Each structure stands twice: as structure tokens, then as C-alpha cells.
């Protein structure tokens, strides 16, 4: 088997590629997974890649992303120097930080760690060998490949990714950070798969970063399944800082069992084309899910947030707040869809999407949507798109604040409504710094690793002192 296959992306390519490399791809499978993969590739053949003729892809055109040649890597690189790749010392790698390079889990020593409190974290490929029953109980149960061709393709091809398991009644003592780095001297096409399982009454903070370290084009089709057991609680952060030649299709499937609690924060700072498919299902009553997003786009960057929330059970609460600032020729899409099923009485759901367009060439398509099948609900949705408030600009300038500083102050204040909800203090400070830098156009793409790359903490200097005193 070749390690690297260089191809343009077409629908026709994949079934052949799958058949040719099926033995290698399925080598680590438990039996039912191989069956799933066979079904998934068949389904992909039927579905094909989405085009702008589909409602869900109307405003996100993948043509340019597909038009490049990519390398398909079917084996992890050997002898990766973890220290070198992550560019700084990673003192907590064995405990809280999980590295992923070009879709493959990388570790200093063991690929799968079992901590004293029962938490398991590490390579998904390794976990499939060691804990097949645990994986089989969850993998592919939430990410339905019948309705989504990227999920189908990922299901057929994935070979590794991150696995995290928090057992019943265990509270993870510190945040876990997944750093997913794309760094290669060739264009890469990646399909990694992550699985996060929170047992009953457990708790986890998870920071999930997608970073690139150079300007090489890449195409990532990543599927993450997250199952929140009864009464469990997850604080989830997705931080995206990729180069302008990268395409990321990130599909995250949340399964919320009864009384589970989720706060998810999507912070999109850079990326050529970012598509966040967020699909959440309440699979029991009294669940509570809040999904926040902030996106800051410029040049020709494109961001597409698709949020689907399925209220299948009564007494659940869901909230969405997505805010964006779009500069230059950038574009954005927000599609929020809340489905309230017939029996889901006393549902409380709101959706809000707000956008600021800084130029006449920036654009956004926003569509919050409620689909409700019972009348005992409290639902609201709203969407606004506008410019920076000119009255506020005048007011700030009349007090002696220069135009650039006034603009910064207003943009930062706008973003702060989302950022201020970040519960982990050091993480919030770091993200505040990154947003300030981003708004000043000074953020480097390699700066995203939130918790590890900043020791000792380096103060960031700003024109405006934003310190809250």
C-alpha cells in the first residue's frame, strides 16, 4: 500500500480508493464497524458531495476547495518529534493535552492513557483495539451517515482520532485540550474521527483547537461524536485558527441524555472555509444546552455555522447565540434549525444570530428557523445584520478616542458578549487576548494553542487598555 495518494477530489474517486485500501482501513475494526463502513461508502456513492443546489449548502460553495490536488495519507508519519511539532514544551502532555498531527493521534509515549480516576484518553484507533465494546456502544450511534455525505465518507475512511471517556461520577480535575495541528509540506486531505463519552453524573471541560502551522492547503473532514450521559456536564470549546488555504468541515454530534448540561463555544478566528455542522439531540428530559459562537473573518474567508437542535423530549432548554464580524470580502452563513417534536412539551428554545459587516463587500446569509409540533413551548429567534453603530462611534470620538481605537473598542465589546461566557478564567483571558490581536490584524495562525503555548504568560500590548478594573 502506498502511504500517499495524490488526487483531485471527486465523488468518483472515493469508492475505488476505499475498495483498494479496504484491508488497511478496516484492519483495526471490530466486526460491526466494517459493516458500517461498507454501508457508509455505499451511501456516499448515492449521496455524492453536496452542491449549492442543496438548501443546506446554498451559500457555501466547495468548488474551489475541491479544485485542488490533495494527498491522502493512509498511515501516520513515523518518528514524529512531538516536542518539535507542538513547538514548545508541553509539560502536561501526559495528563491534559492531547496532540493530533494531520489527523493522527501523537503521543510522547503511550497512545492511550488510563488515569487513576478511570478516565481514558488517547488514540481512537488504539481504543478500538483495547475497548471495542465501549467504542461499539457509541461510535456511529449519533453521527448518522444516511443523511450527510461528509459523515458517510468519514465513517468509511477514518483511521484515527481522539477518544475520551469519563466514567460515572468522575469530574475531570482539569480541562482536557485537543490540539489538532495540520502541518505538512504537501496538501493534505484528512478524515479523522473523535469520540467523547461522558458517563452518568460526570463532568468535563474540553478545549478543542484546530490549528495550522503553515500556509499549505488542506481539506479536513472531521466527525466528532459526544455523548453526555444522564446528569453529566460538559464545557466545550472549539477554537479554530487555520490558514486561508484550508477547508474544514467539522461535524459535531451531541447526544444529550436526561438532565445533561452542555455549554459549547465556537470561536472561529481564521480559516479559508470553515463549516461547522452542529447537531444536537435531547435524548431525555430536562437537558440544557447552550451553544455560543463568535466568528471574525476577513480577506476571502468563509464561515458557515449550521446548528440543528432536536427537542425530542419534554422540559429541555436550548439556547444559541452566534455573533460575527465580517471584514473585506469575507462571507458568513448561519442556519439555525430548532425542531420541537410533538411530545416535547415545555420546551424552551431561543436562537440569535447577529452580524456586523465592516465593508460593502462582506456578506452574510442568516436563517434562524423554528419547527414546532406542540403548543406548550417558549421559543424565540432573531437575526440582525448591520454596520458598526455610527452614533456610538461619534460618541466615543467626541470624548477624544481616535477612530481606530473607537472601532476596536466597539468590535471588542461586541465580541465580548460571547467571550465573557467562557467559564475557565485562564482560557478566557487567553481568548480575549487572541480576539484583541485578531481584531488588530496581528494574530498569527500558529498562536492558537490556548493553554500550552503561552508559558510563561506573555502580556499582550494594546493601543487601548481593555483591562477591566
Amino acid at each position: 500500500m502506498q502511504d500517499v495518494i495524490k488526487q483531485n477530489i471527486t465523488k468518483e474517486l472515493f469508492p475505488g480508493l476505499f475498495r483498494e485500501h479496504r484491508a488497511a482501513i478496516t484492519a483495526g475494526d471490530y466486526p460491526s464497524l466494517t459493516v458500517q463502513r461498507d454501508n457508509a461508502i455505499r451511501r456516499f456513492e448515492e449521496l455524492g458531495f453536496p452542491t449549492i443546489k442543496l438548501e443546506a449548502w446554498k451559500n457555501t460553495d466547495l468548488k474551489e476547495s475541491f479544485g485542488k490536488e490533495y494527498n491522502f495519507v493512509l498511515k501516520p508519519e513515523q518518528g514524529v518529534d512531538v516536542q518539535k511539532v507542538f513547538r514548545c514544551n508541553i509539560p502536561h502532555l501526559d495528563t491534559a493535552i492531547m496532540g493530533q498531527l494531520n489527523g493522527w493521534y501523537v503521543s510522547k509515549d503511550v497512545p492511550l492513557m488510563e488515569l487513576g480516576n478511570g478516565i481514558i484518553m488517547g488514540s481512537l484507533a488504539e481504543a478500538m483495539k483495547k475497548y471495542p465494546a465501549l467504542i461499539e456502544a457509541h461510535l456511529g450511534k449519533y453521527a448518522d451517515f444516511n443523511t450527510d455525505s461528509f459523515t458517510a465518507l468519514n465513517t468509511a475512511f477514518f483511521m484515527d482520532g481522539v477518544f475520551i471517556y469519563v466514567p460515572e461520577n468522575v469530574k475531570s480535575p482539569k480541562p482536557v485540550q485537543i490540539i489538532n495541528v495540520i502541518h505538512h509540506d504537501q496538501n493534505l486531505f484528512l478524515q479523522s474521527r473523535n469520540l467523547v463519552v461522558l458517563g452518568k453524573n460526570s463532568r468535563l471541560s474540553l478545549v478543542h483547537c484546530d490549528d495550522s502551522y503553515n500556509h499549505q492547503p488542506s481539506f479536513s473532514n472531521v466527525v466528532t461524536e459526544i455523548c453526555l450521559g444522564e446528569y453529566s456536564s460538559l464545557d466545550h470549546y472549539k477554537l479554530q485558527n487555520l490558514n486561508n488555504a484550508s477547508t474544514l468541515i467539522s461535524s459535531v454530534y451531541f447526544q444529550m441524555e436526561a438532565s445533561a448540561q452542555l455549554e459549547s463555544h465556537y470561536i472561529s478566528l481564521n480559516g479559508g472555509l470553515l463549516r461547522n455542522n452542529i447537531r444536537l439531540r435531547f435524548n431525555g428530559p430536562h437537558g440544557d444546552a447552550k451553544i455560543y459562537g463568535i466568528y471574525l473573518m476577513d480577506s476571502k474567508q468563509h464561515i458557515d455555522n449550521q446548528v440543528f437542535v432536536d427537542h425530542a423530549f419534554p422540559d429541555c432548554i436550548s439556547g444559541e447565540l452566534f455573533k460575527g464580524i465580517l471584514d473585506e470580502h469575507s462571507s458568513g452563513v448561519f442556519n439555525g434549525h430548532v425542531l420541537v417534536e410533538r411530545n416535547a412539551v415545555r420546551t424552551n428554545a431561543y436562537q440569535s444570530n447577529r452580524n456586523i459587516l465592516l465593508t460593502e463587500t462582506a456578506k452574510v446569509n442568516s436563517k434562524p428557523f423554528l419547527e414546532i409540533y406542540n403548543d406548550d413551548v417558549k421559543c424565540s429567534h432573531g437575526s440582525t445584520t448591520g454596520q458598526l453603530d455610527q452614533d456610538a462611534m461619534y460618541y466615543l470620538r467626541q470624548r477624544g478616542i481616535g477612530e481606530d481605537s473607537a472601532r476596536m473598542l466597539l468590535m471588542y465589546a461586541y465580541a465580548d458578549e460571547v467571550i465573557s461566557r467562557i467559564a475557565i478564567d485562564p482560557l478566557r483571558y487567553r481568548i480575549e487576548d487572541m480576539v484583541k490581536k485578531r481584531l488588530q490584524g496581528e494574530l498569527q495562525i500558529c498562536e492558537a494553542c490556548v493553554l500550552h503555548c503561552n508559558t510563561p504568560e506573555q502580556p499582550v500590548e494594546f493601543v487601548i487598555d481593555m483591562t477591566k478594573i
Partner: protein
Amino acid sequence: MLLSIKNLHASINGKEILKGIDLDVNQGEVHAIMGPNGTGKSTLASVIAGREVFDVTSGEVIYKGRNLLKLAVEERAREGIFLGFQYPVEIPGVSITNFMRTAVNEVRKFKGLDPLGGGAFLKLMEEKKKLVELTSNLANRSVNEGFSGGEKKKNEIFQMAMLEPTLAILDETDSGLDIDALRVVANGVNKLRTKDNAFMVITHYQRLLDYIIPDFVHVLFEGKIVKSGSKELALELEEKGYDWIRKEQRDNGIAG
């Protein structure tokens, strides 16, 4: 002379609002600008402050010996021009502390002074809060967000105290205030009056002038100052109403 306005004409969207204003303001003086609605009082304030939506079509404004009209809004502010807004703008997410610290330090930078550190700034803020009898805890609130009408106006006076302007223009600061808030606002102004600064108090009613005693009263009517006098003029206006001005203008054949 601090401010000298000569034959100032200004328009918005092609509609002329100011039709030849002449006004001189010296340091240490308080000028009241009165007049009925829609005669250009707020426009005059905005043009002095530098709001870009207004076009100055002719005339000149000299401030501290310089052509004011050439300066941007923030440059005028740093030169000591302060506008107390008739409708203070709500700015969610920007705390008053942050806002004022940025503003004070930008003005200090312009004057070649070092920025105020956190401690010194907080001290200044407490001092000025006391001066304007501001009791509510503003520090962590967003600028004007959710403020009552009275709080917004007090906040304007507080900002004025923080920035210590040379020329303060108060645009209908008294509108929408109850008598207690009015007194607080007026006291703030009186405490800030010095021989080196000047005030332009734009008001509709004589009421505010019971508390802020003006040196001069000007009546603005249809884009022009048609009458100037001492504080007694305000009393006369209160008594006779603006119809008196209208009639006088009609009789003079100036306005229809």
C-alpha cells in the same frame, strides 16, 4: 477669545439649517442658547463638535486661534471641546471605566502626559463621582445601557468632570429631568466653572437657568441668532413665549 463663530452656514442632506451664525465666547463665560424646536440649536452643537453628517457651506469657526473646522471630531475633543449629548448613546459591552480610562488617556497622550495607571484613575473617578453627586456604582456597567433619563444626563456631567474641557456644550441636558436631577446636573456645572473654561448651555426652558446663571442669553431662530442679551432675556422669553420672537421676526420681514 476662546471661540469665534462668523457667518456660519451649515446644512444636512442639502437642507440648510444654520443660516449665518455669529457668536463669540470668552473664557470664564456661560452662554445660554435658547429657541424653539427645530431652529438649529442642536445642529450648532454638532457642527462645533465636528459631526460629519453636517456640511459647513460657508463661514468660519476659530477656536483657540485655530480653524476648528479642519479638525476631526476626536481632535476637537482632545483640544478641549466637550459635547453633552441630548440623547446619550448606549454602548453595550463597553464599561464606563474602560471607556473613560481610554478617553482620559488619549487626551493625556495628546497633551504629552503619561497615561494614568489603574489606581490613580480609580481615584480620579471616585473624586469626580463625588463632585457630580453620582452615587450609583457605574464602574462595571456598560455605557448608558439601561440607564434612566436622569442617569444618562448625570453620566454626561460625570464625563465632563473627568475630561475637564475648555469649552463644554450642553445640548438640552435639562430635557427629561426631574427637579432633583436638574439640580444635580446644574450643581455639577457650577462646580466645574472656572475662569479658564466656558460653557454653552442649550436649553428650551428658562428653568435650568435658575440654577446655572448665564452671562449671556442668545435666541436662535430659523438658523440665526436673532436676539442676544443678559440673563433677563431668558425671563422675558419665559414670560412672553417664543411667539413673541416669531412675531418680531415677521414684523421685521425676516421670517414668514
